[in-house]
């Protein structure tokens, strides 16, 4: 099977949807002529023209407002907000307008828009260019929040997001852009469904985005310790596929949730609460790994210590379960 790079997967998804649906538009800061600061969207303007693919001012609220207004009047805007951290500027239109229209209009009108952003730490970008904004939006009914962990999912989920009739927040981890992997099996990957990306019997590790790669790496090492970890990739934070998580926990009786972000208000805390509510009798152990309750530091030594990584997961599991090389 041919290998697909994550950034090419994103570009191909946008290109294919621009091709198949004339109402799809793509715009954002530096996305058209310059091709995006992470070199994701080059060539799209040449191919589809400046009416459908264009650069915009650095005005995130205008971007979100324009996406909302265009989406309710017949277009399918795909917008890039360069760094997820900038989503605070776009929040009113997304949270108060886009997320609410379907319900408030008595289910007459919906808002088919996608806002995609580069997210995550590890790139030495500092406190305001490294956050994951998924949890900022996870508690907003009407929004969908998607964060792929592989090139195949990035393509399939983004195509599904563009075809979806609801507003979708799409998170692309910076440290996944150069990852290569197989193309998706089908045309699209359904939103709101988790995937078991590694099977195991002794422990369920739940994560999303870059955390899934770390969990898989840790699981491979743990196999050498005699522990078979199952890795569940949530893929969407909203809607949340609790069913797949519970099925895995029922099998393994232990769950670890790993988030690149603070535990207070983090998706891991909510997930553990839901697992406890629905499956307490299945649990022998449940814990989580998250970041310190501080902003993300710049210096490489500080940032590396701050971030959950495969090694963090490995040590946590070994310590918690009393296994390992010693």
């Amino acid at each position, binding site marked *: 099977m041919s290998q697909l790079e994550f950034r090419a997967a994103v570009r191909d998804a946008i290109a294919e949807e621009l091709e198949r649906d004339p*109402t799809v*538009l793509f715009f954002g800061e530096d996305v058209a002529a310059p091709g995006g600061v992470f070199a994701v969207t080059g060539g799209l303007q040449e191919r589809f023209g400046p*009416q459908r693919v*264009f650069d*915009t*001012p650095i*005005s995130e*609220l*205008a*971007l*979100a*407002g*324009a*996406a*909302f*207004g*265009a*989406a*309710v*009047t*017949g*277009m399918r*805007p795909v917008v890039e907000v360069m760094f997820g951290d900038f989503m605070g*500027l776009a929040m*009113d*239109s997304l949270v*108060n*307008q886009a997320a*609410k*229209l*379907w*319900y*408030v*209009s*008595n*289910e*007459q*009108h*919906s808002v088919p828009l996608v806002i995609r952003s580069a997210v995550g730490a590890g790139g030495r970008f500092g406190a305001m260019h490294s956050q994951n904004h998924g949890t900022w939006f996870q508690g907003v*009914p*009407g929004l*969908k929040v998607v964060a792929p962990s592989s090139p195949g999912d990035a393509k399939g989920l983004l195509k599904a997001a563009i075809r979806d*009739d*609801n507003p979708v927040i799409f998170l692309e981890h910076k440290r996944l852009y150069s990852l290569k992997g197989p193309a998706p099996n089908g045309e699209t990957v359904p939103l709101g469904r988790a995937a078991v990306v590694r099977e195991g019997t002794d422990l369920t590790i739940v994560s999303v985005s870059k955390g899934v790669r770390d969990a898989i790496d840790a699981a491979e090492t743990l196999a050498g310790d005699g522990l078979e970890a199952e890795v569940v990739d949530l893929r969407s934070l909203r*809607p949340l596929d609790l069913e797949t998580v519970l099925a895995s926990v029922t099998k393994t009786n232990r769950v670890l949730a790993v988030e690149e972000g603070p535990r207070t208000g983090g998706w891991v805390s909510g997930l553990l609460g839901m697992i406890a509510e629905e499956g307490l009798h299945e649990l022998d152990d449940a814990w989580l790994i998250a970041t310190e309750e501080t902003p993300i530091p710049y210096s490489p030594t500080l940032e590396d210590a701050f971030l959950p990584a495969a090694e963090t997961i490995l040590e946590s599991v070994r310590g918690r379960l009393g296994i390992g090389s010693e």
Partner: protein
Amino acid sequence: MSGRHPEVAEQRPDGQHHAAEGARTFLDAYARMFLIREFEQAIHRLFLKGEVHGTTHLSAGQEAVPVGVCMALRPDDYLSGTYRGHGHALAKGTDPEALAAEMLGRATGVCGGRAGSMNVVDLEHGMVGCFGIVGGSIGAATGAALSGKHQGRVSVALFGDGAANQAYFHECLNFAQVLRLPAVFVCENNLYGEFTPMREVTAGGQIAARAGAYGIPFQVVDGNDLWAVTEASAEAVARARAGDGPTLLECQTYRHFGHSKSDPAKYRPADEVERWLQRDPLGIARRRLLSEGTAEVELTALENDVRERLAAAIEAAREAPFPDPAARRGTEYRE
């Protein structure tokens, strides 16, 4: 009430009007303004009786702005409005009974009782939405103008003077001008942002002139003069439709009620209020129609007709059922 008033915009899609047709057209517009005034007074009474809930922001005194703007629009053009938006929706064609039912929280409301006074949306009539947060209409209309560019339609944002200090205003004016969007930004400057005089919180004291910094044509308009609003709007809409980009109109007007239901508006000087009441947009329109040959009996008959049909619409809305939470729980997403 059917709400199917003659669509004034349909008769004059190019923004022009014949002298012979003008009176009839502006007569229809006057009827729409009169409807908005009566509607607001009815909602005020229903609020005092406890039948309209939460809060409500009445637009009495400002009717000439949305009605004049809609004179220049085609039915399929887009309009977005504010939380003071009953008049915006009625001007664009929303059925008064469905709008009243929405205020009353009934299942037959234009949004099934889910939206209430501040968040009405009626896309069937090109009403992209009314927005409960200051400035929201500007973003929505900018986006609708993006669609309009592909669809051959014009999009108008109605917003208040307070919104001119929001990021939405500055970001979207720049955005729309850079992209040459077919948008018209119409500020209803009623001189007060909630309880605070506009001039105390608006640097430079001018709203229209701000457009100049963005290279956008602008005009200060007498917002209580239906003819002035119509003329300025027609010019701005024609510019947008021709692909020449957005315009900012600052329509100066005055609200007869306070900001919201809890506000008696004691911060406004009595002489100022009196001066503006003398310039009531309905009075101005009525006098001009009479001076241009409409008979008093015709106006009175029209007013009585509007009043009677509205009364019937309100009664029908009051008799409509409340939405049953057990029968329809609501879904989060369109599947």
